[in-house]
């Protein structure tokens, strides 16, 4: 998804993806089973689950966190991400 954008901003410039708290995660893989965008990746070695493709994550979607029994998934602050996207759009609009 190299050409991927959100509101015309390159996806790589937007800080929005899940973070796994490994002190809580019990590797039930419910998040990975739910996410249709291959954000997570299961591995043989520890940790058994990682956020492998953060830029595949749909900006502002937090649905995987809702499948998490032990509440181990967190996301960046929505208002901060919105402000950052608006700022980038403004700067790129000026060029």
């Amino acid at each position, binding site marked *: 998804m190299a050409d991927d954008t*959100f*509101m015309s901003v390159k996806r790589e410039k937007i800080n929005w993806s899940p973070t796994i708290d490994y002190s809580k995660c019990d590797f*039930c893989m*419910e998040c990975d089973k*739910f996410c*249709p965008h291959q954000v997570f990746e299961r591995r043989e070695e520890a940790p058994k689950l990682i956020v492998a493709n953060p830029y595949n994550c*749909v*900006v*502002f*979607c*937090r*649905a995987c*966190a*809702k*499948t*998490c*029994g*032990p*509440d181990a998934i967190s996301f960046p602050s*929505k*208002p901060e991400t*919105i402000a950052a*996207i*608006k700022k980038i*759009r403004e700067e790129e609009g000026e060029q």
Partner: protein
Amino acid sequence: MKRAILPCNGLDKQQGVLARELALRLMETQGAEVICPVLLNNSPARYEKALADASLLVIDGCPTRCASKLANKLGLRVDDKVLVSEEAKSAGLDVGESLRPGSVGMQLVEVMEAGLARAQELAVSEEPATDFESPTDYLTVTYDKFIFKIPAQGYLFNENDCWVQAVGSRARVGVSDFVQQSLTDITYFEPAEVGREIEQFDEIGSLESGKSMMDALSPVSGRIVAVNSQLVDSPELVNEDPYGRGWIAEIELTDFDSDKELLLDAAAYSMIVEKKAAEAQR
């Protein structure tokens, strides 16, 4: 109508224990029939009669939502849902980790019972206040055997496939035709809470089908002044008429000009749908 309750089995976490306790409480106070999830899973026929003429409340303990998944697997029609871990968060109660009901936990059971009683009253009293007209002209995006409709005028969209139709300082929001076709038959709608202040891209309700679930993300910021309570009984309205009778919530707008910076018109959104439809086929 009689109520049937499908709770979490209550043997893995305190939240599950409380799901079971809430079910037992409602059995005692309302004469509701409690369904054992293990027995239901093994012998669905055992509960056929109880489920046929009752409204079904599903009580999940934690976000693993085993009870919801079981209901989905068996194709049961769910009328109401409670998720104990969410209720604990919003009530600011730390229920601990014991597998016996604790005192804080039982306090939460009372909060949840009162909340359910309030929700039943609210469902009757909410009335949308403004007239919104259904779209007449559509743009269409055709991909493979799918045709996606997008209202040509009067609607704006976010890239998360939700629409807004504003009339003065009020707006209706909902999900696009692309969402309803992607989810296929929508079987459950969970409305947001009326009166809540929301930021742009906050959740304004969630939709579930046999295939998946989705949070609708608000295209606008403001205060939720009404929810479409018809969707609770008839979530299929989102499939039938996503831009009209399938609306999700009404919002009193607070900063529409600023929200518009991150909204698309019909032509721009149709290009997003084209891209997503192609990705979904890959």
